[in-house]
């Protein structure tokens, strides 16, 4: 391609390669760079292209000026957009600038090195399979470039072919190291600020449109393996961060320090842990409000570890050595952990939470500081409060009225909502009436608070996909969802999902997390009458345990494929499982498992060494065999015959020198005048043909016999008159002969 580029624009081939390599290595980075920096790189490349086309090289002061200008722009760009790391931006800028000043072999080498580095560091930004394939191809091109730098005159085709061969030969070692290089159980250090911003998925701070980006992301958020039967997928609310504080626009989950849950409250919440820890023996004797068969044990794996919080099925009721609960049932890691995390948890799908501390209620009643923010929403809340004043179940009544308001609105479910920054809640409630889960949840939370019902917004995931290959529920980023928790004196904290009340005809975008909207709606609207019913749908009961393993529950869940024969989908599923489990997310635990299977570290290292030694042996043997094949046969026999000629000449008193070219020997022999010049010429021509033109024609037996005859026929001329006395060595030789 670079050759084409070079031909098209008449560019010097080496420089065109560099420009191409610079563009290719930075292309994936661009989406992570501030726009200004990306534009800067583009401008530099265009300048480079222009200079190449004009065949102009910049002088040193101009180059220095250019670098300084680029650095100044970078500094401003980075200062303005602090989310990009200075180091990364600097590396990218240098890679873009380097081709401008790279014209000799030495600087091409350092350019290649920079490109390797640029490719490697990309995976600290993004770990998608697509980019892995992209950079694998890029490594081939870059290595081809390195080969060309080292071997001037190597054509592009052979360079790429050799690069592929080199990388393929490097693979066995790479694979062994990949699996057996000791993986750390947890990171040794943390980069400056990786508390959650760098992780994709549910963020710590949200605006109404935040989850929009996740709607189409198929990336796996986590996997869950259930100890018992898998509950109905529609009842799976995976609880993430809790949002109390808002200025009417931004919601923040991390405003106050974490308050751990008091042990007696955990016990009072009625959870009976399947394996009670020694510190919670008291829970055995406490009265239970949740039935034991409603607790569900499961294991979450592949979850992001760089978080303040951990995902758990609504509601987690257990503390483990890895995770603890806060007073509002937020599951948090006990210590900062690695990039991917796996932990056990127990949840109760149906549970009544005990009364909270005053602080929690106060947090859950907070309204935007600015009075104009969500002004109309507050009025609505106050009106609802006034309407149900004196009602014993005022809170439930208000919840029901808000759901009705959404259902009858008419409100629409749509992903393509405008991003309002002035007063998003009011605009959504009274103007647009279009939105998705965060809009409904945020609006409902504010209305409830205005009506003096403590409420908080919860972000997490809803539903999931059943994977038969993994035996797990796979939850993807597109399952991200937001809902509300409201406090009622009767039931404690109730989960309310306002998005679910939008009837299907008013759903414009198919939200996978909202897949069962219609069934859910019917239950919502139909059950608003009685408090028990309300409670049932608001926090759905666990499915009755029917059948062992696999999906359970009355409805056949469309997301869970029926048991079927080996299908294409199953194979793809299995492939993805193997790729994810054994390549992409291979970690310390899996390594321990693998090493354990192969009989401990000594055995595994031995095996690794054996594999490496074996690969090396095969490689060396192949190379030597090829060499033998090349030197075997005719070439060797021709050399042997040539040596025979040397012996014959020695007998005639003419010494042959080691490494003497045959042309030189030929000249010397002619100069002695003792041999017939014609037969000498014939002899040496034959030798030259047989020895040096093998690629044209392999010397056959016939040729070799002819050559041998020519050597045998070589006689000293009898015509002594031709002898030139001046030639040294001749008389001496004759004496020796005699």
């Amino acid at each position, binding site marked *: 391609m670079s050759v084409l580029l070079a031909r098209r624009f008449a560019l010097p081939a080496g420089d065109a390669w560099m420009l191409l390599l610079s563009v290719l290595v930075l292309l994936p980075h661009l989406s992570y760079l501030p726009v200004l920096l990306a534009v800067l790189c583009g401008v530099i490349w265009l300048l480079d292209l222009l200079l190449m086309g004009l065949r102009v090289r910049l002088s040193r002061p101009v180059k220095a000026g250019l670098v300084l200008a680029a650095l100044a722009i970078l500094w401003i760009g980075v200062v303005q957009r602090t989310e990009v790391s200075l180091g990364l931006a600097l590396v990218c800028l240098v890679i873009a600038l380097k081709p401008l000043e790279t014209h000799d072999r030495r600087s091409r080498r350092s350019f290649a090195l920079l490109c390797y580095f640029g490719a490697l560091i990309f995976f600290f930004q993004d770990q998608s399979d697509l980019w892995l394939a992209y950079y694998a191809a890029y490594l081939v091109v870059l290595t081809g470039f390195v080969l060309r730098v080292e*071997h*001037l005159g190597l054509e592009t085709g052979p360079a790429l072919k050799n690069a592929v061969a080199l990388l393929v030969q490097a693979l066995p070692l*790479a694979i062994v190291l990949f699996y057996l290089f000791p993986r750390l159980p947890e990171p040794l250090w943390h980069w400056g600020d990786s508390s959650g911003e760098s992780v994709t998925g549910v963020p710590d701070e949200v605006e109404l449109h935040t989850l929009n980006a996740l709607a189409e992301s198929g990336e796996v958020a986590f996997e869950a393996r259930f100890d018992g039967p898998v509950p109905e997928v529609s009842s799976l609310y995976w609880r993430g961060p809790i949002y109390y504080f808002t200025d009417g626009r931004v919601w923040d989950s991390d405003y106050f320090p974490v308050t751990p849950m008091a042990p007696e409250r955990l016990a009072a919440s009625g959870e009976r842990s399947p394996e009670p820890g020694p510190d919670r023996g008291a829970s055995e004797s406490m009265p239970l409000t949740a039935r034991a068969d409603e607790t569900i044990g499961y294991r979450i794996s592949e979850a992001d570890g760089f978080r303040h919080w951990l995902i758990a099925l609504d509601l987690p009721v257990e503390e483990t050595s890895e995770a603890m609960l806060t007073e509002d049932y937020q599951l948090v890691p006990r210590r900062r952990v690695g990039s991917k995390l796996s932990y056990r948890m127990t949840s109760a799908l149906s549970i009544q939470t005990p009364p909270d501390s005053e602080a929690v209620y106060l947090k859950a009643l907070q309204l935007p500081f600015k009075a104009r923010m969500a002004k109309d929403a507050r009025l609505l809340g106050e009106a609802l409060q006034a309407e149900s004043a004196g009602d014993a179940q005022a809170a439930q009544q208000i919840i029901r009225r808000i759901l009705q308001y959404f259902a009858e609105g008419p409100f629409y479910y749509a992903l393509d909502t405008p991003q309002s920054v002035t007063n998003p809640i009011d605009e959504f409630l009274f103007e647009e009436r279009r939105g998705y889960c965060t809009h409904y949840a945020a609006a409902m939370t504010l209305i409830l608070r205005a009506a003096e019902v403590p409420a908080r917004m919860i972000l997490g995931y809803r539903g999931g996909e059943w994977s038969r290959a993994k035996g797990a529920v796979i939850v993807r980023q597109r399952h991200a969802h937001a809902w509300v928790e409201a406090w009622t004196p009767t039931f404690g904290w109730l989960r309310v999902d306002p998005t679910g009340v939008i009837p299907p005809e008013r759903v414009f975008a198919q939200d996978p997390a909202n897949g069962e909207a219609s069934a859910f709606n019917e239950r919502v609207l139909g059950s608003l009458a009685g408090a028990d019913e309300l409670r049932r749908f608001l926090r759905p009961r666990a499915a009755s345990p029917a059948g062992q393993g696999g999906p359970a529950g009355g409805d056949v869940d469309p997301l869970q494929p029926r048991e079927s024969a080996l299908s294409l989908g199953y194979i793809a599923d299995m492939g993805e499982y193997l790729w994810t489990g054994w390549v992409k997310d291979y970690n310390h635990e899996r390594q321990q498992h693998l090493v354990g299977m192969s009989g401990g570290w000594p055995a595994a290292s031995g095996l690794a060494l054996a594999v490496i030694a074996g690969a090396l042996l095969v490689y060396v043997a192949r190379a*030597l065999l090829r*060499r033998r094949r090349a030197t075997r046969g005719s070439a060797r026999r021709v050399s042997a015959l040539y040596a025979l000629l040397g012996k014959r000449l020695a007998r005639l008193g003419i010494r042959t*020198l080691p490494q003497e070219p045959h042309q030189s020997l030929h000249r010397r022999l002619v100069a002695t005048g003792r041999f017939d010049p014609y037969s000498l010429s014939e002899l040496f021509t034959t030798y030259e043909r047989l020895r040096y033109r093998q690629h044209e024609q392999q010397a056959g037996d016939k040729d070799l016999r002819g050559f041998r005859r020519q050597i045998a026929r070589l006689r000293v001329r009898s015509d002594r008159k031709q002898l030139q006395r001046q030639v*040294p060595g001749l008389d001496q030789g004759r004496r020796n002969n005699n």
Partner: protein
Amino acid sequence: MQARRSMSVRITGLGIAFLAMLLVTLAGASNENNSFAYLLVFTLLGLFIVAFVKGALSLLPVRLLHLHAESTFADRPVPVRGALTPRDHAIPGLLELTSATTSSGGAGPVMAPGMAPGADGGFELRLPPQPRGRLSLGSLVISTGYPAGLFRWSIRLHGLATAALIYPAPIDHLVAAGRRSPLQAAAESGDFDELAAWREGESLSGICWKSYARSGKRMRKRFLQSSPSSDLCFDWNGLPTLSDEQKRSQLCHWVVDAHRRRARYGLRLPGIMIELASGEPHYRRCLAALAGDLGE
């Protein structure tokens, strides 16, 4: 006889930088358990090791097929031609040849670094001027950065034999001392014939200065050749004022000049007497004698 060989390897600056880069990235990948970064780092680490092995394997079968140095004068570079084998496959694109001479002439050991053998494995190097006598080659280093320039493997060949002679530098010390050479004398011993235009490169002593003063044109006196009487004998003992090396150098100058003029000439050196003759073999013999290869 094949020259003795020894093989060695060193890591290049590029190799060190490459390894350092891999280690830094490995630390990052290790910390974050970043599988894709691991994959790439280990692939490049594999490349590093494969490059090491491949470099050695590419150089192992390389043999010096022949090496031939041209006899020349002590003030000129010595052309050395040779060829490497095998030439049909595995020789990587680049072999760099250096030669360390064991001579004490103070000449730098490096010659033609970065030279690549031609498509047929042949190469030609130019040694810096060597001292008079039989040319002695120190060693020849064939090195390669194949395949990726991360390592430099080299083979050093010792005990290289060559038949080349280094003749004394042909310098006319007598002219420098303002004396006429016998050749000049012989040339001018004939009768004056005519004035011919002086050309660049001709001896200044041949210029007719009188004519130059008159006309401003440089003219040269031409003499009628008296063929049989132009036989010359260059005698070592006829140069008492010069040192031994200067004598050789002076005699060499005369021999070269006489050969160019196709004159018949003889040479007398201590213990050696080369009779009057002409032609290439005679010329070579005289030069060999002056190089010290016959008489000593």
